[in-house]
């Protein structure tokens, strides 16, 4: 048939493999990084989470970093320091 042909305006996002670091069997003795996203009370929330991780899960120490802003990824300095200094990271939106 004659029909009316139109073009698709959408695209598929570029596919990329996502690789997860193996989860630790236990948090006992581990060093935990806490990424604070600058939202109000997110620091308090993460401090509390850190306390729970220490008291209930045997975490050895926690270190907190503050992002530049909640809408941007953790900056390179955080990534570098975390890579060298911690075993696991807790990150998320505190809002």
């Amino acid at each position: 048939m004659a029909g009316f042909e139109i073009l698709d305006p959408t695209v598929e996002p570029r596919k990329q493999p996502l690789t997860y670091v193996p989860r630790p069997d236990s948090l006992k003795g581990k060093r935990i990084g806490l990424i604070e996203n600058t939202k109000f009370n997110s620091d308090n929330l993460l401090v509390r989470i850190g306390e729970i991780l220490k008291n209930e899960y045997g975490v050895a120490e926690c270190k907190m970093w503050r992002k530049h802003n909640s809408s941007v990824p953790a900056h390179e300095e955080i990534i570098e320091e975390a890579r060298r200094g911690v075993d696991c990271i807790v990150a998320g939106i505190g809002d």
Partner: protein
Amino acid sequence: MTTQLTSKRYVVEDLSHAIEFCYQQGWTDGLPVVPPTEQAVRAMLDAAGLEPDKEVCFITNRQVAVSAEKIAVNAVMAGCLPEHMPVVVAAVEALADPKWGYHGPAASTGGAAVLMIVNGPIAGRLGFNSGDNLFGPGWRSNATTGRAVRLVMRNVIGTMPGALDRGTVGHPGKYSYVIAENEAESPWTPLHVQRGFKAEQSAVTVLAAEGPHQFYNQLSSTAKGVLTSLCDDMKHHGSTNGQPQYVVVLAGEHMRTIANDGWSKADIQKFVYENTQNPVAHIKRVERLAGTVTPQDETTMRPLVASSEDVLVVAAGGRAGAFSCYIPGWAGGKKSSQSVTKLIQDRRI
């Protein structure tokens, strides 16, 4: 132009079915779109001098490459004329600039739209409105170029309302939010020239922005009087919460009053910067800043923006009426998003 278009093709019965088909696929902003045929898309690309496979930009946050072909398809859908294509391309390039920082302003609950300010000869040539009813309907260039950018965000970059566009209230500028500076009547240096371009070049400035906040002053015949009213409103507006930049749009009467006092854009910027500061104590008392009020807070002033240059002044709006407006940028600070100006290029040369 011979390069094959690679977009998937759909065949429907006729024009009206095509319009409904676009709705069914979730490709529209809620208004009907112009069905994108190959002929129309090719005309769009030809007018901009772009091959369809040209990667105009890459949105890192979304891992999406935005091709000229996809911009052209969406520009057709938005109702653009082929000669609008370079404006749309420049604006999309601006969105991909790290300074604009796509993820935050596109996805935020803050609900920013993409304000586009067009400067240079192209504004007059294509009939961009810079006068009466500045933000209102009625001008194809203003209505369709901004709409095209939003459709690219939706259809190409995946900024879907309710998914990766989580604006809590948003605003109507998300349909289209485009103005031109009234360079013909402005006594001041055009915005794009302030930002390093030549007057004879055309450019578009893009800012993630709230809606326009109108203010009124019919009493004063001085620059200071008009701008005092502006600042009184501006420093108490709803989102004084780390806006990186503001646009102050001065319309005919106010523009003439201020210019008659010999004030330059720099004078306006300085006055607005200095007179929109709030005591920290006030911001805490009205529950916009955490913490108890300290004696020091009573005398510590908090500016709206980091410097006077973060107040962008634009001459635009109708000749009559004692109204102008200011537009807050999207809250997030300059490390999250700030305005970007891009050259509108004619690549056919």
